[in-house]
């Protein structure tokens, strides 16, 4: 009974009445890749931004950041299945142990006059499972760059996630020229 979702999706109770013929026992049993694909529900959730608070020296401002995963490699998925994901990664695939290339566009409110509201971070992030193969608790370490016109900063980040990766706290540290800033994001994500 207990799975997570928006509904019991009765339509999903597609029956299996169509009886497959009983195959001969060939020794090795076939496995099937899950065949993940974008769905309207998934797309809808990707539009949800994560709130972020940034603390440059002597001030702070609020912003929003989105998450895109162009490529992810799971190092724990069974070798008979594809270990690669693009855009969509199931929680246990991502948080059970993986390395991803991330892109995270953001928009900041209340920045100083003349400063860009837009920024984009990109880099590599690794996830490590802590509890229930990462479904209950996982940790991430990441590094990359933050591009905020006209500046580029190296970044380092640390994240902690729960609820199947649905919520997390991610801290990011950046150094733009002479000053450093730290941001904290309440990561909201679904797949």
């Amino acid at each position: 009974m207990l799975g997570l979702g928006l509904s019991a999706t009765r339509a999903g109770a597609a029956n299996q009445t169509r009886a497959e013929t009983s195959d001969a026992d060939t020794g090795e049993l076939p496995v099937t890749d899950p065949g993940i694909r974008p769905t309207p529900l998934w797309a809808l959730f990707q539009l949800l931004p994560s709130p972020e608070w940034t603390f440059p020296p002597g001030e702070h401002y609020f912003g929003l950041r989105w998450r895109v995963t162009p490529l992810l490699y799971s190092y724990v998925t069974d070798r008979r299945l594809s270990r690669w994901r693009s855009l969509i990664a199931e929680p246990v695939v991502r948080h059970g142990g993986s390395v991803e290339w991330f892109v995270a566009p953001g928009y900041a409110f209340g920045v100083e006059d003349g400063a860009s509201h837009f920024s984009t971070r990109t880099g590599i992030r690794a996830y490590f499972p802590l509890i229930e193969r990462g479904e209950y608790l996982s940790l991430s370490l990441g590094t990359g760059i933050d591009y905020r016109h006209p500046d580029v900063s190296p970044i380092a980040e640390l994240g902690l996630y729960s609820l199947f990766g649905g919520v997390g706290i991610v801290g990011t540290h950046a150094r733009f020229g002479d000053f450093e800033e730290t941001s904290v994001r309440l990561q909201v994500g679904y797949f």
Partner: protein
Amino acid sequence: MCRFAPLLAALGLLNASCVFPLTIIDDNAARTFSSPAPPAFRTTHPEQDGARLAVLWVGHATTLIQLEDRFVMTDPVFSRSVGMLSPRLVAPGLAPTDVPHLDAVVISHMHFDHLSLSSLDAIESQVGQLLVPQRGLIYVPGFDFPTDELRTWRHWERAGLRITAVPVQHVGFRYGADNAWMSTSYTGYVIQYRGLTVYYGGDTGYNQAMFTETRRRFPNIDLALLPIAPIHPRDFMAPTHIDPEEAVRCFRDLGAKVLIPIHFDTFINSHDGFGEAPRRLRKIMRREGLTSREVRILRHGEQVVLERR
């Protein structure tokens, strides 16, 4: 509920909501944060000398089946809660450390009350083989034991122990959005060894065609392990969960000799009152003239020897 309502509502919404309505949590809020009750029986040595067929109901859908010298466990869940939000009401009747070597463990589907990764971790060294439904392999990453998928009517066999995936009517997702592609990752199983045949229904709605086809292929089922809950809200549950009345119909469709009900009174997952499902089953037994030898209602942790050598 009251003071925890906003917290639980926020958790649910942040997690894209739960498959069970939040009202279910609301109804059971008093038990949400309490410790599980002790089981009626706590077994430490489940191996039954001289048993040809024995079953131990650990709780919910977790059973330990002994077929002579072979042991099979169904949907092992030993955790304090499932899906983070659904607490356990009654502690498991068997500790993971007391689980014997398991020739096979079968997972019926991917829901949290059937596939518990921490529970598999807890018995990892005892598991000889894990079987999951088609497309289920992706959700059991990184374990030491061999894992295979079984498509409907396909079987796995080793040293005389044969396990066949049989059709049931349920859903295969784990997280919700994966329902779009996890369309085949649920199954029942028929377990056979030295002339013994055990049917394990996992979770299923009532589908007579599936059960009669299973009976046609397996005409001598000695034991059917069938869910009898969740019952309420019925309109919501009926497509994917049989109630006690449907379980008896399923038992007849399968032509099994003995029915042992499972999947009740262990986790909060419905509006059912505690004890409601077995009470309704007893009422149906009286109405239909079923004896307690045909329908064995076990208490948590209780073990029954159905056949001796």
